[in-house]
């Protein structure tokens, strides 16, 4: 990481209503952000190289509503820079590696849940279990790719709450660290910045 300039993060917005909050949290951490809509196309090498990492925002609907998210994830894998998927973004990352989505037992819209995790860098500074807000009706059921590792979950019922890729710098969280009822959500973003 070039210490001389501030960190730049690209945020892909899936037409969601929490994207600007994520950007605001990053600004609080002295990070510059650029927000683009998920259907905005730019494969300019200089444009992509100007970023140190990428965040895929939450969003409504399912994997039919994700625009060019997969394209950008692959681009960031190519340039070896980290990607964090939140909610829908998390589901996109898992589905890229054989993850299957299903409907959860009921929609968890605006519900706070206890999240259990093992020691993963993304959860540094937090104590298991931590309380985070969820906004999902779908959930990752199973993942048939051994490169994807489950890093956080809920109990009763068991739901996958965070994943990471063993080789690439890909991270996904099902919960919303930017919600005001999430306790210590900013740690997730702080820790993600460490991956740069």
């Amino acid at each position: 990481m070039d210490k001389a300039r501030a960190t730049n993060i690209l945020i892909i917005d899936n037409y969601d209503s929490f994207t600007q909050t994520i950007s605001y949290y990053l600004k609080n951490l002295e990070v510059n952000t650029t927000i683009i809509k998920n259907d905005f196309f730019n494969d300019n090498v200089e444009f992509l190289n100007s970023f140190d990492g990428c965040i895929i925002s939450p969003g409504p609907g399912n994997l039919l509503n994700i625009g060019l998210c997969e394209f950008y994830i692959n681009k960031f894998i190519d340039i070896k820079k980290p990607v964090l998927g939140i909610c829908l973004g998390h589901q996109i990352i898992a589905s890229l590696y054989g993850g299957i989505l299903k409907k959860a037992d009921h929609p968890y819209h605006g519900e706070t849940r206890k999240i259990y995790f093992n020691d993963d860098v993304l959860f540094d500074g937090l104590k298991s279990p931590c309380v985070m807000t969820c906004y999902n009706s779908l959930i990752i059921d199973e993942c048939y790719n051994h490169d994807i590792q489950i890093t956080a979950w809920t109990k009763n019922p068991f739901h996958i709450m965070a994943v990471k890729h063993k080789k690439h710098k890909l991270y996904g969280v099902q919960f919303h660290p930017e919600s005001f009822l999430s306790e210590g959500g900013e740690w997730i973003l702080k820790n993600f910045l460490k991956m740069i």
Partner: protein
Amino acid sequence: MDFEKFSKNDLIDIICCYKYTESELLDYKKNIYENFEFPTYIFENKWFSGDYYINVINTQAIIYFYSNDLFVLYEGKFKRLKGDFWEIYSEIINFLTENNILFFNLNLYEMGNYLFNLYIKKTDLLSVIVVPGEFIKKYNERYFIVKGVFKSNNIFLPKVKSNEILYSKYINYPNKAVYKKNLNKIRRYIVNGYTYQINYTERIFINKYIHPYDIFEKVRNNQNSYSAYFTISKNRIVISDSPERLFIINNDKIKAEPIKGTISTKIPDYCKKLMNSNKDLRELSMITDLLRNDISSLIQKNTLNVKYPVLMKLREVAHLYSEVSGKLNEDILFSDIIKNLFPGGSITGVPKKMTMKIISHIEKGKRKIYTGSLGIVNSNNNIDYNILIRSFYLEKNKYVYGTGGGITISSDIEEEWKELINKSEKIQNL
């Protein structure tokens, strides 16, 4: 009966069949409607938290915005200008605020559809700006009045056939079967994750021969309300009795106060019940997250603040609301603030764009002024906008009253229907 012809003769016609039964009342009414000079704009009670009063003498101009057209009413004549709505609108409001010119602004719900690139008709009125000419600051009167341009005596009142009973009300409630059907559709959208919460609303039509100023008189006595009497044109008048604030700006501080969660004050222990209702708290937390998002691109680092939940007691119902505030960026334009905060998150749902799309598919009829916003803008650092709920709208000889509520996965159809009726209780007192 054509409303063009609905003039004194018709009025006398109506009055004649009552002369013998309730003549005193009618004489009074006739006298009032024909001779009293009604005001055109009144703002009182909750505006600027009730401590800010100005008396305005005349209007300089009224601007009507459509998507590709705008009309200015200036010195009694209409002038037309073609051009893109947002380009002209933002230029005008930024100019007015930067030059400290006081104005009133009514933004209709359809303006939100324009901002989110959703479908609108060319004929949809999007926004109205009223620029008063001269005004004097007065601290002993709790309202703004603007005289001029319209004579309220010439307003088109609701049509009532002469053989109909003058004092009965014709209230057209929404159809419960249709409501149930639509709520089931919404459930499917929620289960599939297209929306987390949606503000589904219905319209109630009221046909009664009553002057809008009379309605205003009946509702104006409410300290917790953004009371306003706002004339758009001869046949369109807004009577606001809304408790909800969209945002207020005081110097460099901005604060939004979304309302979510309702309980009838007839229920014993209603305060405690509401403060402990998981369903209502969750609804409010979603909208609070939405407002944090909308406000966060406008404010400085590390200044975002949330107060949640807060209780609001009104006459018929009590509500929960939250306060989302921050310190405005120095280089922010007033048009950026409107673009980020309008339409209010509590009357769309989360996430905003997809939910507004679902609203336009499911709701029958446009919302117009209902869930739009009325605001007073007095320079760049003194702005107060409400959200027009619990408000009457006289349009085309009919009063419309909008009512509805937030629907989530935990919503019960019967309970939501009850809430919808509770919120419209005031129309019984007309």
